[in-house]
C-alpha cells in the first residue's frame, strides 16, 4: 500500500492506494498526521482495493488518538468493498463518511475551527 499525503486549509489528506491489511496497517498507524492528536485527518479510501479487520482496527485506533474522537478522522470516497467491511463491523458508526474529498475537508475544517 502507498500513502500520498497532501493538505488543504490545515487539514491533512491521506490518499491510500492498494491493500490495507495486517501487513500494511502499521504504515497507516505510524503516519505522522495520524499520530498527532491535534491534527484532523481526512482519509481518502477511493483507491483501496481491499481492507480487512486489521485495516479497520488501524483506522479505529487512529481516531482514538485524536483529542475529540468523533471528529478527528473523516473518511471519504469509500468503494463498495470497503463500505461492506465497515458495515459488518459497525465501524461506520464511529466516522463521518463523505463520497467526495473536498466535502470531507470542508466538514473537517468547520469541525476543527468550531472546537478550537
Amino acid at each position: 500500500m502507498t500513502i500520498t499525503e497532501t493538505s488543504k486549509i490545515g487539514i491533512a489528506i491521506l490518499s491510500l492506494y492498494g491493500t490495507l491489511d495486517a501487513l500494511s496497517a502499521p504504515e497507516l498507524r505510524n503516519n505522522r498526521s495520524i499520530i498527532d492528536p491535534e491534527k484532523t485527518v481526512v482519509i481518502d479510501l477511493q483507491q483501496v482495493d481491499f481492507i480487512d479487520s486489521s485495516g479497520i482496527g488501524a483506522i479505529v485506533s487512529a481516531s482514538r488518538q485524536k483529542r475529540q474522537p468523533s471528529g478527528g478522522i473523516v473518511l471519504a470516497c469509500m468503494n463498495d468493498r470497503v463500505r461492506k467491511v465497515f458495515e459488518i463491523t459497525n465501524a461506520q458508526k464511529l466516522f463521518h463518511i463523505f463520497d467526495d474529498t473536498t466535502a470531507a475537508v470542508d466538514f473537517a475544517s468547520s469541525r476543527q475551527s468550531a472546537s478550537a
Partner: protein
Amino acid sequence: MNNSNITLTLPAERLFARVARQTASSVADLVIGDDRHEPAGRDFSHAFELAVSEAFTNSVTHARESATPQVVKLTFFFEQRQLVVSVHDANDPFTIETPVPDIESYPENGFGLLIIRKVMDHVTYRREGNYNIISMSKTL
C-alpha cells in the same frame, strides 16, 4: 469442478496473507463461473477473500515462535453449490465463540472472527491431533 480438492500451503507470515486471499478469490471466481460480474458473484468472491484473509492473519498472529518455520494450509472443496475452505495451523487451541466487539469502545481487535461469521454461512472449529482446523463454507 465438482468434488475436487485444492490445497495451498503457505509460510505463517503476514506477507503471504495476500496470496491466501487472492487464491481464495480466484477459487470462488471459478466456482461461480461467468456470473462473476453480477453483484451476487462479486459478493461471493469477496466473502471468501475476507474470510480467508482473517483466518490466515489470525493463524499468523498466534503462530508459535519455533525453529521450524510455521506453516498454514488452506484446502478448498466444492460440492453441490457449496464452497468449503478450511484453514489448518499448528497453533495452540482457540475458540471461535468470541464476543461481538462493542463498537462504542473503539476496539482495535476482535473484528476478525466477527467478519468471518458474518460473511460465511457456516463456520466450525475442530482440533485434529495438534492441529487447529477452522472450516468455513458458503452456498452459491
